[in-house]
Each structure stands twice: as structure tokens, then as C-alpha cells.
């Protein structure tokens, strides 16, 4: 019944699911877990405040449309990036900053527009929503279009969260820094070295995926995140055990994982 070579993986997946759901259940039962503050998320308010003081806009983008798609494995980064957009839009609406959104993915354009529109409507400021500030940039010239927009509009804060190619991760924050922007970024492993060097704050590793828990402050979601930390502990134990056994010439664990 279970596909060959995926038995151990399936077992690990069930353990993962069970631990996450136990912590989710504990969260629902009222157990409170403490979530470490994520500095990059706290910096959003600082960045938007800076934009208001300088009377310049805030710019957000999600990455190159050819590098990622919502319906494949990279979609999780885009979804997580959009959670950050929600927070950025909320803070911009509260503080009265102009928000510029550059979207390269045609399938994400309506979502981005809907998110910002709904934030302003729920915040009681529907008249302040400007649809023309949310722009779909062409696929092949994404980088040029976004660079051009940053140079023309000169935002005070540049935020990019999603999935980025090397050139996006390198050039966009660099251009933004050249224009005097405060940079907040977050992306996948391959983009991280470039983002960290060029940014004031970066969402490192799974901070990008834990963002929604801090943004909503929902105890149930925080419980789920706490469950993931337990799974991380299990993974660290497995890695240490695997390295030790392999160093001793025992291949039992690697054979078991391939089972």
C-alpha cells in the first residue's frame, strides 16, 4: 500500500503531524506558549514610521515570477510573503504611509490588490486605498521594472518577502539602499546570503513561516509553532545520531531513511 522507499518518510510525516496537532490542541485548550519576537517583523513599524516622517512611500515586492509559482513547491514562500504584506498594509494604513506594491506573478496580482483593499476597508479608510499603487510588472523585465520604480518613487522603506533569484536578491536591496531605503527582507536559502548583507533586517530560515503567528497573536497558531520547535529538536537528534553512526561506519540510520 505505502510506496517503496517512502515508508520511513511517511512515518516521520505522521510523527510531525501528530506533534503539531498535539500542540495545536494544547493551544486551543488555553495553554500559553511564548513566541520569541521576530526583529524583522517589529522593524516593519519602524520602517513605515520612517517613511511617514520622510514623506516617502513604502515599497513591497514578492520576487521574480519566473523563479516561483503559487502552485508549486515555491508557493509556500509566496504565501508567507503575502502574510508580511498584510502586516505592512495594516501599518501603512494606520500611520498614513503610501504603500507601493510590485507584483510579478499574474496569479498573485488580484490577491495583492484584494489584500490591500480589504486592509483599508476594514481599517475604516477605504477612500485612502489607491489601486494604481499596486502594479503588475512584466515577467521578463521584472527586475528592470522594479528597479525603475524604486528609483522613480524613492521609497523610504523597501520590503521584499517571498522567493527570489540571485539577481533579485542581490540587485533589488542594493538599488533600494542606494536610494536611502531601510531594507527588510526574507526569502529562501539561496537568496539569504545576499539579503542578509544588503538589509537592515532579514527574516532568517523559518521566521518567514512563523510570521503569521506573531502578526495575529493567535495562541492556537503560536501553539502550532511551538510544536514545530519540538520537531526541530527531533530532527537535530536525528542529524547528530546520523553523523555519529556514519562516522563510526554504521549505515543503519541512512538505510532506514531510504526504506
Amino acid at each position: 500500500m505505502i510506496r517503496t522507499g517512502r515508508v520511513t518518510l511517511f512515518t516521520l510525516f505522521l510523527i510531525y503531524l501528530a506533534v503539531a496537532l498535539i500542540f495545536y490542541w494544547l493551544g486551543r485548550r488555553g495553554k500559553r506558549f511564548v513566541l520569541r519576537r521576530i526583529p524583522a517583523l517589529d522593524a516593519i513599524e519602524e520602517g513605515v514610521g520612517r517613511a511617514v516622517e520622510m514623506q516617502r512611500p513604502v515599497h513591497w515586492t514578492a520576487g521574480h515570477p519566473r523563479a516561483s509559482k503559487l502552485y508549486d513547491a515555491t508557493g509556500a514562500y509566496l504565501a508567507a510573503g503575502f502574510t508580511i504584506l498584510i502586516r505592512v498594509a495594516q501599518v501603512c494604513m494606520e500611520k498614513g504611509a503610501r504603500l507601493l506594491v510590485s507584483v510579478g506573478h499574474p496569479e498573485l496580482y488580484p490577491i495583492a490588490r484584494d489584500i490591500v483593499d480589504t486592509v483599508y476597508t476594514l481599517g475604516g479608510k477605504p477612500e485612502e486605498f489607491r489601486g494604481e499603487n499596486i502594479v503588475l510588472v512584466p515577467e521578463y523585465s521584472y527586475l528592470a521594472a522594479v528597479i525603475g520604480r524604486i528609483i522613480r518613487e524613492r521609497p523610504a522603506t523597501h520590503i521584499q518577502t517571498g522567493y527570489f533569484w540571485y539577481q533579485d536578491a542581490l540587485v533589488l536591496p542594493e538599488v533600494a539602499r542606494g536610494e536611502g531605503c531601510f531594507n527588510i527582507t526574507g526569502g529562501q536559502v539561496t537568496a539569504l546570503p545576499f539579503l542578509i548583507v544588503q538589509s537592515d533586517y532579514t527574516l532568517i530560515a523559518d521566521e518567514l513561516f512563523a510570521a503569521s503567528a506573531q502578526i495575529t497573536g493567535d495562541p492556537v497558531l503560536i501553539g502550532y509553532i511551538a510544536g514545530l520547535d519540538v520537531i526541530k529538536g527531533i530532527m537535530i537528534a536525528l542529524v547528530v545520531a546520523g553523523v555519529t553512526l556514519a562516522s563510526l561506519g554504521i549505515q543503519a540510520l541512512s538505510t532506514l531513511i531510504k526504506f
Partner: protein
Amino acid sequence: MSSEIYKLYIPQIIVLLLGIIIISEYFLAVPTLGIISSWARELGILVFSAAMVVAVVGVAIRSIREIKRRTPGEWYFHIWLLIFLFSWIITGCVLTSAHTFYKWLFENFITALYQAMLGLCVFSLFTLFYRFKPRLQLESILLSFTAVITMICGVPIGEVIFPGATALRKWIIEIPVMAVERALMIVMALGVVGLCLRTILGLERSWLGILGALIPTYRRGEKD
């Protein structure tokens, strides 16, 4: 609030069902699951195509508005955008993407623009030192130093200048870089799986827009 409920819960039910089927198909060898998951993937492409149409209409509306307003420094670019947008659509629909003219357009516009973009990226890399000079942070010095070592050691002259350069480059790439990259990859993979499961189980609703993301907050507010 009823329309919001439909907007939230119907997509969640679809995602839950399809998510369970696609995950089960990966682990279990059941032919029916394979057929349904393949159908679901095709449905995804269909939805993606519909979103493309929405996006094209959105771009066209915005461009027409900018041209009408004569937005300084922008409006004439929107004329070009509309000309090329509809030229591509008409060429693609009438002649299909296999036609010589379509290929000519692709090679002479898209490829050229794309190469220019890559050139910009390479130029940016080469000017790295100059741009980092005003702010000599430890991270930028380390990055630049490692980049130069790995670049010089990767070309034949590196071995001439410093015997053992290839071994040093190999060590940098295979030991410290690989160790950090794998650690980050494991953690991020766990984060991705976590987010996907949260989405499938309906705990994560940011993809449904702000309404979905705020539902837990509303619930807490109602309890208080």
C-alpha cells in the same frame, strides 16, 4: 458576514480535500488517488490561466488610465506596454507560439531584454567592493573576501598565484558553506511543511486575503 463565510470556508474545504488527496497520493500507491491528484493539478493550471486573464485586464485598465491622465514620465511607456501586450496576445492566439514570427519576437525582444538584465546583475557583482567601501561591516568584508577567494581560486591563474588555491576553494564550498546551507535548508523545509499543513488544515488563511488572516483575532474579540 455570510458572503465572507462563503469566501472563507468554501476555498478552505476545497484545499483540505485536495491537500489530503495529493499528500496521500505521494505516500500511498492507490491508482484512484493518482487520477484525482492529476486532475487537481490540471485544475490548478486552469485557475492560474484564469488569473492571467484577470491580470492582463488589470494591466490594460491601469495603462489606459495612466495614458488618459498623461502621468508625467510614465504615460508614453504605457502606450508601448499596450502595443506590445496586445501584439503578443494577438500573435500568440492567431499564429500560435510555434510560428516563426512569434519566435522572432521572442528572440529579438525578450531574450535581448533578459540578457541586459543579467548583464546588470554581473555589473552589480563587479562593483561590489566599491559599493561596500563606505560601510565596512564585518559581514560585507567576510562576504567580499570569501567571494574573491572562491572566484580567484576557481580560475587557472589562482593556482599559479597561490598553489593550493583549488583545494582552499573546494574546502570553503564543501565544508562551511555546505554545513550552513544544509542547516538552513532543513529548518526552512520544516517551515515550508508547517505552512503547507497549516494551510491545508485551515489554520493559515493569509492566502485568502486579510479576512482569513484576521479570523482568529475576530474570534478572540467575540470571546472577550
